[in-house]
């Protein structure tokens, strides 16, 4: 009877669940958003000594960091205890064809093991995709004042124009990267 828990959950269940986190975080006294935690981690590491930008009141920020800690635990719980063995995502056949053309032939599992392994990370392609990619995520979200959670979900829920503009930016960048840069980097 509880088999459905171990199957992938459909978008019309998970989407509203994520939407409910918006009022949940407001009731808890802050706003739903993850990327500010990247700055909090800088502040904790002592970045305040280098720039006043990182001298912040850490009290509520530590609470948000606990949310991030929880999300790591949640990821562990879902992947280890709520997932069937030999699990693969039901991608559209068009997506499988496009991804294969990038040289990623193993489309089993939650993530492509061709990308998320240490050997690829240390290759020149891996340095661009994962290290430069990570840098752009950190720099870009903070310059934009938020990420998918803070702008595209929380901000759009509050009908904020800045969040719509930022979300349009996310998609311009994502489309350029997907259709131009990534094929240039990965195609064998």
């Amino acid at each position, binding site marked *: 009877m509880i088999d459905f828990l171990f199957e992938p959950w459909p978008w019309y269940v998970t989407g509203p669940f994520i*939407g409910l986190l*918006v*009022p949940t975080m407001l009731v808890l006294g802050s706003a739903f958003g993850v990327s500010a935690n990247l700055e909090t981690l800088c502040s904790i590491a002592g970045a305040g000594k280098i720039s006043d930008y990182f001298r912040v009141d850490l009290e509520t920020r530590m609470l948000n960091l606990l949310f991030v800690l929880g999300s790591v635990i*949640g990821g562990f719980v879902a*992947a280890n205890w709520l997932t069937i063995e030999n699990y693969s995502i039901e991608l559209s056949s068009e997506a499988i064809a496009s991804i294969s053309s990038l040289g990623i032939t193993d489309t089993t599992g939650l993530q492509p093991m061709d990308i998320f392994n240490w050997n690829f990370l240390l290759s020149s392609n891996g340095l661009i995709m994962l290290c430069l990619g990570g*840098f752009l995520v950190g720099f870009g979200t903070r310059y*934009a*004042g938020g990420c998918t959670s803070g702008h595209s979900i929380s901000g759009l829920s*509050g009908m904020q124009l800045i969040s719509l503009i930022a979300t349009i930016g996310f998609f311009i960048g994502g489309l350029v990267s997907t259709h131009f840069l990534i094929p240039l980097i990965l195609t064998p």
Partner: protein
Amino acid sequence: MRSVLYILAGVIFGIVMVKSEAVSWFRIQEMFRFQAFHMYGIIGSAVVVGAVCMTILKRSGLKSITGESMKFPQKPPLYRSGLTGGIIFGLGWAMTGACPGPLFVNVGAGYPVMLVVIGFAILGAFVHGIIAHRLPR
């Protein structure tokens, strides 16, 4: 007590993000190639539910659990940096297949390589903070 609730909310977020497959590089590729409705369904329905709940909360006059009246934070209307920063983030989002939330969720889900990606994301946030006063807004 408040700390426990934050952790709990995070746990729910992490579970839902894995079970929705929104943390997957595959799903992000599929989204940016417009090859499935899946990700648009997740984000779209999240926004609809979020917007309805926020409207109700605003009208209710409910207090937050700290006992203060509820705050509805507004992002500063810095449109130029919103668009430019957004484009920069989007480039990296497609490469890593992860926005900041999924970066952390993936570590728990068994992809320790993401710790390095997080390290570089923190470096990106650090560099932004150092030069923030010189960037156009």
